[in-house]
């Protein structure tokens, strides 16, 4: 059993890394796209195997109850995104926005990003975690700037500067954690291994841990798009290729938040340290309210959904900041639901901006008339992300709100206000795009496969109606672990 798990774990890392190298050589873009899908499928299978056969952790890598579900979710979404990407880039090539040489580069960086994210999720070593997230940042910077338009370069540059800054702060925090651990655990690698840290966290110098957590929260929080440091996110989403927007929103934000949560667990294990909850809840609430207000004036469809991602990361951070089994459960569920729904929306948005030839909301009209399948897909996606029943997002948001009401009724007021703001704006925007009169404009038929979007929406719908028993039990278990 252990051997199988070890194979699966190395597959998760080796396949994307190998595929990234291989894709640099493959010149034919169709073959490249197929290879990309194949590699993503293989890693997804490896992740599924890992669910059954769990290898023992070492000082560098580890699979536990918490990360296994994110690994599975991550690889599922990256597989469906690779399917979407294959039909998306074919169109970009036709319209001449991308050349085959850029596509080669694009596929290689896509796999490199999967490698970095899998490494970050599997890492047991806080240094390795940092390296992986840094790699993911650098790779995504390159991807965001892919179109080489002035706006894309500006977005990539901004992302690069803010992302590196976040990464730098996180490294300082990591060094401080090591310094706190070193007198207790001793010098060297064990003092950076997360499981050893957790076991001994109670004996660490609390003041040092506090300071470290502030740096880590700000640092990784930048990558998760939390508000004071969110400025890169809308630009990066709007100007990069749409598959990248889907991966950024659906996966990379989760990975950054996952890093914060790992450190939050360390903090909670030390009774003398500052409670990390209020800090996270505060940042989360701020992000939610800010994004709710900002949603209102967006003119660009991808920017609109980028702000919606900030909003949802705010909700998730708030839920984990509240802590306790119920709020953590809601946070985990919301992480999953947001990931699936938002990437489905970006799949739809990618095709929409291709058929309409624009990302401006004001020029997109009457989609349900001109492109029924796509238009209704967008409607369902937005209805789901806005938090209407019967979709899964409703359930998780409901849990967040009700657990807040039960414990801190006053906090629930701004929370509900933020949710309602976002809800209203999204539906109002959707109304113009999906219904109304199509204004003549180009109504080219779509040649794309809509299956990735349909699969995601179906999963979200099923989760909203019925969550499988083992999944619930497992979410409960992790929620208790998170403290």
């Amino acid at each position, binding site marked *: 059993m252990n051997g199988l798990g070890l194979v699966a774990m190395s597959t998760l890392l080796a396949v994307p890394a190998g595929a990234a190298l291989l894709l640099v050589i493959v010149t034919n873009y169709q073959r490249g796209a197929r290879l990309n899908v194949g590699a993503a499928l293989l890693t997804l299978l490896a992740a599924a195997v890992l669910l059954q056969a769990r290898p023992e952790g070492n000082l560098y890598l580890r699979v536990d109850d918490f990360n296994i579900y994110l690994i599975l979710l991550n690889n599922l979404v990256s597989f469906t995104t690779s399917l979407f990407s294959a039909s998306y880039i074919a169109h970009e090539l036709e319209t001449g926005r991308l050349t085959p040489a850029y596509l080669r580069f694009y596929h290689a960086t896509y796999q490199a990003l999967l490698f970095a994210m899998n490494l970050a999720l599997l890492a047991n*070593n806080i*240094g*390795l975690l*940092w*390296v992986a997230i*840094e790699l993911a940042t*650098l790779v995504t*910077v*390159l991807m965001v*700037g892919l179109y*080489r338009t*002035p*706006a894309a*370069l*500006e977005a*990539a*540059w901004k992302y*690069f*500067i803010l992302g*590196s*800054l976040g990464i*730098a702060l996180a*490294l*300082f925090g*990591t*060094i*401080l954690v*090591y*310094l706190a651990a*070193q*007198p207790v655990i*001793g*010098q*060297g*690698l064990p*003092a*950076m291994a997360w499981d050893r840290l957790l076991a001994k966290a109670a004996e660490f*110098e609390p*003041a*040092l841990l*506090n*300071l470290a957590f502030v740096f880590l929260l700000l640092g990784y929080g930048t990558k998760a798009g939390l508000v004071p440091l969110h400025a890169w996110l*809308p*630009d990066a989403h*709007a100007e990069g290729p749409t598959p990248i927007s889907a991966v950024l929103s659906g996966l990379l934000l989760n990975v950054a938040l996952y890093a914060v949560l790992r450190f939050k667990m360390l903090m909670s294990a030390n009774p003398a340290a500052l409670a990390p909850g209020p800090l996270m809840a505060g940042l989360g609430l701020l992000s939610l309210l800010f994004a709710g207000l900002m949603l209102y004036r967006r*003119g*660009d469809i991808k*920017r609109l959904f980028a702000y919606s991602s900030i909003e949802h990361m705010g909700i998730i951070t708030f839920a984990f900041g509240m802590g306790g089994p119920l709020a953590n459960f809601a946070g985990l569920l919301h992480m999953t639901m947001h990931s699936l729904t938002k990437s489905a929306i970006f799949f739809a948005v990618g095709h929409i901006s291709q058929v309409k030839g624009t990302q401006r909301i004001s020029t997109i009209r009457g989609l349900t008339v001109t492109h029924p399948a796509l238009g209704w897909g967008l409607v369902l996606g937005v209805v789901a992300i806005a938090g209407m029943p019967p979709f899964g997002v409703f359930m998780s948001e409901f849990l967040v709100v009700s657990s807040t009401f039960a414990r801190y009724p006053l906090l629930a007021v701004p929370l509900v206000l933020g949710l309602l703001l976002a809800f209203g704006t999204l539906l109002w925007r959707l109304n113009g795009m999906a219904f109304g009169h199509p204004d003549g404009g180009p109504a080219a038929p779509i040649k794309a496969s809509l299956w990735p979007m349909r699969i995601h929406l179906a999963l979200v719908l099923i989760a909203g109606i019925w969550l499988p028993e083992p999944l619930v039990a497992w979410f409960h278990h992790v929620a208790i672990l998170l403290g």
Partner: protein
Amino acid sequence: MRGLAFDIAHFLAGGMVLVSFMLLYQDRVYALLNIFALHALVLALAVGWQAHTQEAPHLYITAAVALIFKAIVIPVVLRRIVQQLGIHRTLEVVGGVGRDMLAGTGLVALSILVMLPVTQGADPLAREDLAFALAVVLLGLLLMVNRHNAISLVIGFMSLENGLILAAAGARGMPLAVEISVAFSILIALIVIGVFLFRIRERFDSVDMQAMDAFREGRRK
């Protein structure tokens, strides 16, 4: 001997803070690059000294990387970029030097006030090194915030990373993997930055960040 080792370590780390201040008031591109090279040189010496006192040979690698890449290669490459792109040789200082100096002094005081009480249990050498390192990080941030051109941003970011390496070197026995990765990341960062600077030139005829800001959504309408 122990006392002397201490003093030299402090002297070098304090020297980095001083050079960080010098970065703040440069108004010529070449002078900024030269001072950055000095910053990296002092870093290399400080890390080398840590390697010697901690008897940690792997830190010599970190020191060598700092010396070769940051003190020599990067300034030379950036100088060539400046020449090739024909960037203005003078830099605008937003808000004036006096304000920057005052803010910088405040940041140094802040980092000492924050770090020293927090690290009471830690090794005294690491402790004060860490306070200096935090000061260098914050001064790097200040430089990034107060400048609008790409070269100063890059220099600010790299001086900030120098502070991080100082902190990592001061943390006794911190595993090698991290140090290599830090050095590696700088290398990659340089490649990315290089690519960007060239592309920026291609598209804008300027490396002034305000020219890029004009492309933001709000102003595009």
